[in-house]
């Protein structure tokens, strides 16, 4: 069983350096759409038996561009982006100065964000919904080729889910990049990393 994961194209919030989690739902920007279309030309959707997108518009729009009109795109909220609570949609402001322990060398927030901002989804909570999602996915599509379209934070969490460690062990992938995980149905769905953050054009 092979799972291919694509991160959505860019939106105006990406371009403005704002937190962009599950509470904000912008469309792709013009540049975001153009780049996704460029990738779409190089992308072959035919091998995929199942296409599941996060329900957020930036993911669904990217999925539509990549697979065209011939394939059904299901949505599942369990692969939507991290909920950034009170800071969702906002810029980090002084947060990095006030709480440098929250930020890594790339300026990405870690699990301590929730100590300072209300209602941020914890990494443990994300793991619960991913475990539920992949248990069902394996049960229903155990020998298929699955395409998921979702988000930067959640892709890191998906890799931590399969390979151990935490989000800290996986960088944020580029927009419209490809990550692939193979699950060996003859070996108890043993996970193997085939690609991480591979660019398609």
């Amino acid at each position, binding site marked *: 069983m092979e799972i291919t994961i694509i991160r959505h194209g860019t939106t105006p919030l990406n371009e403005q350096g704002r937190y962009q989690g599950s509470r904000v739902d912008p469309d792709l920007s013009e540049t975001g759409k153009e780049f996704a279309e460029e990738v779409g030309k190089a992308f072959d959707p035919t091998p995929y038996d199942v296409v599941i997108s996060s329900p957020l518009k930036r993911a669904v729009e990217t999925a539509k561009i990549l697979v065209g009109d011939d394939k059904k795109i299901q949505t599942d909220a369990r692969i939507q982006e991290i909920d950034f609570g009170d800071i969702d949609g906002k810029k980090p402001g002084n947060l990095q100065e006030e709480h440098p322990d929250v930020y890594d060398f790339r300026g990405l927030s870690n699990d301590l964000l929730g100590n300072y901002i209300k209602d941020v989804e914890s990494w443990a909570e994300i793991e619960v919904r991913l475990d539920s999602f992949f248990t069902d996915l394996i049960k229903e599509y155990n020998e298929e080729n699955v395409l998921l379209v979702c988000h930067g934070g959640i892709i890191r969490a998906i*890799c931590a889910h399969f390979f151990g460690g935490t989000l800290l*062990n*996986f960088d944020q992938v580029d927009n419209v990049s490809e990550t692939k995980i193979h699950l060996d149905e003859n070996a108890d769905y*043993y996970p*193997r990393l085939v*690609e*991480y953050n591979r*660019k398609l054009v």
Partner: protein
Amino acid sequence: MDLVFVRHSISVSNNSGLISGAGLDTPLSEEGIEYAKQVSANFDESKYQAVYASPLQRAKDTAKILVKETMPVQLDKRLVEFNFGKWEAKDPNPLRVEYPDAFDYSGMFNANYSKYAPDAESYADVAKRVGGFLDEMKAEHKKDRVLVVCHGLTIRALMGEIFDNDVFGYAAPDNVTFNHIHLDEAENFRPRMMTYNKKLV
């Protein structure tokens, strides 16, 4: 510290499908040289402070093409491919029939192969030698970006050592793809997957 592992370009043996490990010093094919040059045109060697390569010519020559002769390529025996013992230069197909439990779903050697291949290096043996190489990198290149050109199975072993997990959790990368790990000195060299099996062309 950034370690960027690259698998050598296409060799004459890759084309003929024969098993080629440390015991077979097969050269790059015409196609392999061409492809390495194409990748090299998109590769910025000025970002790197050091370059290491396996002394096998397919790796050494790929490294030279990538850095366009601007930097010395340091050869390190610990980076050679697995030594496949008496199975070197053999056609793997009859072996897959005779020893089915030595191969994984993708037709690659699994942990059992060294039980059947006389004089072959086991996955555990290779883990130890690449571990030595990694320790040296941490000691000498704490703040550097280092290019390491070597081999498919060796890169899997390197990943397993870096992330302290199973070598079988990593696919062997394609020829001349980029496998980039960031290890931050400030975080005690915690490893972060930046890209795996990423193509430049």
